[in-house]
């Protein structure tokens, strides 16, 4: 009972007076009840204050059009100003946000979302089904340039059922469908009379309104006093700056110009620790580094060649030298340990030149010559990682020629086009989305041109399966398949590192998709 009261006081559901009355009624003395107040406040979010953030990303070409959101600056701003239908909770499950509840038909093909009654836009209007439909339609159709278009491919039809209910009809069953709506592109905007949204609108349902916005430079957000979501949006004023230079970013934190920075330079991050006012926050996540091989192109069409390469990379060295220790070795499958359905029974793959040689022999080869295409922007340290790989692979008789490509146009000219290259994935909230995006046969971003009959079959089945235990078994098997027969080397998962002053506080558990509490930290964290 006392615990419940403490929690209510902490989240602001009840006042201090109610808490004291309740605690006294339960037999606590006045002094002990006051003590409890103090305890509750130590862990409780505090209201007020200013948070100044220094982000690496942000560009003068940024706009509020959700179709083109592509960097942390806009992600964080977007999540603060707009709500999505569903948000990803710290435990990896979906949690209603603008939608109050949602339910699937038995075949998981029809999904009904009920909207919250109390949710309003910052101009005072109530959120209706029309707003949701217009916002989602912005990412669909022939003329959409949205990066979220592939995510929503399975939507056949969207209908309003009254003012408050939206019904999605899918082309195939999808048990994880609600979690798609956590995506940052899918914040809900007000509909216009013609059933579209104004892509540049800054009117959202979120806890913050935009006070000023200068693309690539600065955004100032102010808390909305009438925010409908209780126990969120604690900070009064948020200032986001783009500080692209790592030294400038770290200096800004040290000199107190900002309170929080992302991506400190990992080579010098230990120097930040010397400052008593600064704390580092490391977060395991879904971010992982990949080296996809086209499984339909020689020599990668032979699984033995792929296994030889998988055994010829020194994963621990990748973590130690490229990620400076801020990461975990990967096992050639993309599901992170924090995700639901992560297969913890896969034996880790060690660096084993003898085994690599064995697989080469199985493929009928003595040596192997391949070209690995890479660029600085494939991921931070991609060129170094490729060179390291090339060195260690020599022990197995594999010659990897590292081809350094220009960073400009890497994603359009090299990735998906060259048979062996370097890339990364920020991750997806669910195993289904990760596999569907990058491993399903025929997917736009199937970078390894992976096409495995059993895998494809399981993917469709697991997607529509509503029984968790059955699904778990299916995803375990799929991870096994991708690890053993897949055409992607996944040497490591990265950790997100951020640095902040000690006055910045966060809940005990944070969401592990992307950096900074799933980029929803502005609404979830607080300052003292």
């Amino acid at each position, binding site marked *: 009972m006392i615990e419940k009261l403490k929690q209510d006081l902490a989240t602001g559901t009840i006042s201090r007076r109610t808490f004291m009355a309740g605690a006294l009624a339960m037999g606590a003395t006045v002094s002990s009840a006051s003590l409890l107040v103090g305890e509750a406040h130590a862990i409780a979010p505090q209201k007020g204050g200013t948070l100044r953030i220094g982000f690496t990303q942000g*560009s*003068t*070409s*940024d*706009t509020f059009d959700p179709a*083109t959101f*592509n960097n942390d600056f806009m992600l964080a701003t977007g999540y603060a100003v707009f709500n999505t239908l569903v948000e990803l909770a710290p435990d990896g499950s979906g949690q209603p946000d603008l939608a109050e509840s949602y339910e699937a038909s038995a075949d998981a093909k029809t999904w009904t979302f009920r909207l919250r009654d109390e949710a309003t836009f910052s101009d005072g209007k109530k959120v209706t089904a029309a707003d949701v439909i217009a916002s989602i339609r912005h990412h669909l159709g*022939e*003329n*959409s*340039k*949205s*990066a979220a*278009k*592939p995510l929503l491919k399975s939507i056949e039809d969207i209908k309003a059922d009254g003012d408050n209910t939206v019904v999605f009809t899918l082309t195939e069953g999808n048990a994880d469908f609600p979690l798609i709506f956590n995506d940052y592109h899918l914040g809900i905007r007000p509909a216009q009379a013609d059933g579209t949204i104004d892509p*540049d609108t800054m009117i959202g349902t979120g806890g913050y309104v935009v006070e000023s916005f*200068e*693309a*690539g*430079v*600065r955004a100032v957000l102010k808390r909305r006093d009438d925010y409908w979501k209780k126990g969120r949006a604690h900070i009064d004023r948020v200032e986001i*700056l*783009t*500080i*692209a*230079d790592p*030294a*400038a970013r770290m*200096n*800004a934190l*040290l*000199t107190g*110009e*900002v309170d929080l920075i992302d991506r400190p330079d990992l080579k010098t991050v230990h120097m930040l620790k010397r400052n008593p006012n600064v704390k580092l926050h490391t977060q395991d996540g879904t971010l992982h580094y990949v080296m996809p091989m086209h499984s339909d192109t020689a020599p990668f069409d032979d699984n033995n060649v792929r296994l030889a390469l998988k055994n010829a990379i020194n994963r621990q060295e990748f973590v130690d030298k490229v990620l400076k220790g801020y990461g975990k070795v990967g096992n050639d499958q993309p599901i992170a340990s924090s995700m639901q359905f992560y297969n913890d029974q896969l034996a880790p793959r060690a660096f084993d030149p003898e085994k690599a040689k064995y697989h080469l022999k199985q493929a009928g080869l003595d040596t192997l010559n391949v070209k690995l295409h890479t660029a600085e922007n494939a991921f931070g340290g991609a060129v170094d990682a490729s060179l390291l790989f090339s060195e260690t692979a020599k022990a197995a008789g594999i010659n990897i020629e590292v081809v350094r490509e*220009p960073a*400009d*146009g890497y*994603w*359009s*000219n090299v*990735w998906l086009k060259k048979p062996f290259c370097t*890339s990364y994935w920020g991750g997806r909230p669910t195993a289904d989305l990760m596999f569907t995006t990058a491993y399903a046969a025929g997917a*736009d*971003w199937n970078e390894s041109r992976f096409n495995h009959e059993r895998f494809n079959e399981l993917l469709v089945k697991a997607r529509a399966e509503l029984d968790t235990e059955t699904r778990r078994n299916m995803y375990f098997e799929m991870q096994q398949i991708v690890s053993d027969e897949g055409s992607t080397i996944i040497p490591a998962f990265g950790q997100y590192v951020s640095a902040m002053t000690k006055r910045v506080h966060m809940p005990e558990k944070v969401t592990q998709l992307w950096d900074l509490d799933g980029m929803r930290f502005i609404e979830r964290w607080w300052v003292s």
Partner: protein
Amino acid sequence: MSGIQKLVLRRIGLGIVTLFIVSLLIFIGVELLPSDLAQEILGQAATPETVAAFRRELGLDQPAVIRYLEWVAGVFQGDFGVSLANRRDVAELVAPRLKNTMFLAGYAAAIAVPVAVTLGILAALFRNSIFDRLANVFALSSISLPEFFVAYVLILLFAVNIPLFPSLARIDDATPFIEALYRTFLPALTLILVVIAHMMRMTRAAIINVLAEPYIEMARLKGVPRYKVILRHALPNALPPIINVVAINLAYLIVGVVVVEVVFVYPGLGQLLVDAVAKRDFPVVQAVGLFFAATYISLNILADVLSILSNPRLRAKA
């Protein structure tokens, strides 16, 4: 029409032709870069369909020649177009950045030029003295260090170790003038240190050059004091090279400060240009590129005119 007016008009005419050629070169340059705005914005998340839809929306599916001619037609009507990335008027996008760039350049120049010229004159006056050598060592070392290094050292000294100045030079329209001067002091100081050597050395060399002339010897022999020899007899004749080097450095302060902008997170034109090139936002690249070219051309014209005016013989000829 006097000779000088004719000269200025001819130079302005040539300048406009140069600008036209520059715009063509910029356009070709941006076209030659791999990928375009649609691909750069969508990045790893691009699919063929969405890129095609994006291009249609921006008109990037039109042939390059047509896009260039449309842009030129717009410019002749005083319209620099809209940014492809955010549909904002280019003029409106560039104006606040331009103001910031000019502010920082003006701030640095207002200190650097008088200090450099004075140091140069003093160094010439006390040639080969301790002062001359110290001034030279100081100036040469500050020009030898890359500007980002100078910037980091200044931040370390005056923002981290002794917190006198902010490490970020953040200003906006609402920042009062004095406050802006304070906030941008470190970037201005960085620029001052970088440009001072060039101007100081040229002033010193130009004056010392003139000091070898017979009329200076004459002035000395008739008993004119040393400082008067330099200020009255040597300096006026040493002005043309000094004016030229000052003009080059002023141009540099306007167009060449992107590194300093990045280190101090100062929202100037350089950062805008870098972003625009990275995203292939051609109208913005054109506008900023042309402004930079125009700065060079006009400062050169100004320097030439001032050099002519400062020389009675050329003045008479013109």
